[in-house]
């Protein structure tokens, strides 16, 4: 069995008084794609955002429990959330290219945020940009206009640009929060293929409301309902022979 890179134990997340994630425990294994599915409002995005300490940036956001990354508790007293986010990349529902930066600078944006000691030398930046764009399957489409604004790209290209941006800092884990929710079918297919390929180098967690997508891209799937993590199993098993009746009801389309 592959190594566990990231794991949550007894994780609870709140928005003010709202209890969004209840006592969730889950492991994410190295170079696997784990999908988190569930009806909207079930807390799947919140769970994801607890993994790189983004949840606490929302007003009223609060987290209890443990999240271990290579054995270190990310919510420990001397952990800096900024550092956490540098090691665990994230891509959001809507593409978020920085409108004032060129395509190249967007990809390199994360590098500039790194600590001086970790930052790659200037000469390497272009190489890293190219590699990241290639990994994100965008290089061929933008290589001739790296210096132009990222806003000129299509929605699907922008989303792959954001993936490239997240990859540039070589994170070991990549969190994808419904990355295809705002994309057309062709762009969605490209991103899905990309996610499938990313497992060669990265540990990926993808939140999706689309069960077919989870089935297509993931090795393991977790099902959430009302803030509770109902079941985690190999994708095949979860969709064919789920052990919890609620999971079965959901995957057979009886609700949600």
């Amino acid at each position, binding site marked *: 069995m592959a190594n566990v890179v990231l794991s949550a134990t007894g994780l609870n997340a709140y928005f003010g008084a709202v209890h969004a994630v209840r006592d969730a425990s889950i492991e994410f294994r190295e170079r696997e794609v784990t999908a988190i599915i569930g009806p909207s409002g079930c807390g799947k995005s919140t769970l994801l955002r607890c993994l790189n300490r983004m949840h*606490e*940036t*929302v*007003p009223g956001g609060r987290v209890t429990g443990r999240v271990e990354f290579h054995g*270190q508790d990310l919510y420990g*007293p*001397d952990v*800096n*959330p900024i*550092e956490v986010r540098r090691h665990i990349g994230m891509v959001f529902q809507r593409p978020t290219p920085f409108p004032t930066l060129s395509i190249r600078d967007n990809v390199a944006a994360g590098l500039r945020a790194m600590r001086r000691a970790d930052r790659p030398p200037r000469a390497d930046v272009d190489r890293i940009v190219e590699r990241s764009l290639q990994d994100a399957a965008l290089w061929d489409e933008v290589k001739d206009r790296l210096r132009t604004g990222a806003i000129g790209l299509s929605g699907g290209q922008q989303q792959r640009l954001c993936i490239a941006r997240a990859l540039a800092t070589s994170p070991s884990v990549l969190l994808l929060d419904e990355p295809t929710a705002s994309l057309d079918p062709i762009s969605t297919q490209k991103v899905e293929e990309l996610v499938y390929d990313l497992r060669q180098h990265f540990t990926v967690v993808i939140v999706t409301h689309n069960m077919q997508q989870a089935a297509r891209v993931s090795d393991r799937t977790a099902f959430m309902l009302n803030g509770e993590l109902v079941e985690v199993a190999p994708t095949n098993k979860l969709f064919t022979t789920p052990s919890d009746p609620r999971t079965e009801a959901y995957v057979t389309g009886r609700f949600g």
Partner: protein
Amino acid sequence: MEDAPSIEGNPEGPTAPQMGGGALGDRVYRWVTTLCALLVPALLIYIGITVFVAGWPAFQKAGTSFFTSSRWDPVNGIFGAAPAIYGTLVSSAIALVIATPLAVGAAVFLAELAPRWLRQPVSFLIDLLAAIPSVVYGLWGIFVLAPLMRSMVAPFLKHTLHLGDLPFFSGPVYGPGMLTAGVILAIMILPYISAVTREVLMAVPRSQREAALALGATRWEMIRDAVIPGARSGIVGGIVLGLGRALGETMAVTMVIGNTPKISASLFSTGYTMASIIANEFNEAVSADHQAALMAVGASLLVIALIVNVIARWLVARVGASAS
């Protein structure tokens, strides 16, 4: 981004693992922006205290007669600010009486009546009125408006309309004076009242207009019964905001009001306002008493402006709250 205390890890923990360290920049940044923000109330308080302390000797010396005495006599060291207070109130009142119907009318025109192609240019031109510096209004007041008052407006009021027997329009006409100042002020506050009114009128929901029209109301009845009532407190807020401008307006008034410390029923007579008395005399005030008296006038003006502004903001904010 809200304050989330947990966003910073403990910097320089004793073990300092690979993910610990540096939130110093964030802390400095937060301190700097907070400081900038706090500087706004600090400045306001500082201005208030400074001006009050500087004016305190005058308040102390004259007591309540500072506000009630109409004798302003720097040579003999007697300072009663009543003429300046009277002038400020009267010139502002004239300005409001003239400006309010025009500004509200123009705002209704822009919000409800103007054809699309006319709306942009007209509101731009009205806004342009606000861009003209106060001294330029003063210059125009001296050389155009004041002579016009003497040669045309005063004779019209006195003889054509036979209002010369009323105390407001009695007495000699010099040109510069209370009425001239009021008219200049009216022109200057028009764009402010009009802009606020236009905005609150636009905030009245479309459905209310359509409901009125569906009931068979004429355009005017719709404006009167459906649009204006919903925007009323905002319009009043705009008028009070205009009043605030008029009370504090300095240069144009100083240039056309005649600068004499007296109270006269006639609107053609010259006068003073609180702002103009400071502008006109401060640099020549050599005695400490005179300086303190002018500071005291400034402190009083500050208090009046403060109250008027607070009321105006409150009224305008009420519309914003109910509209959303």
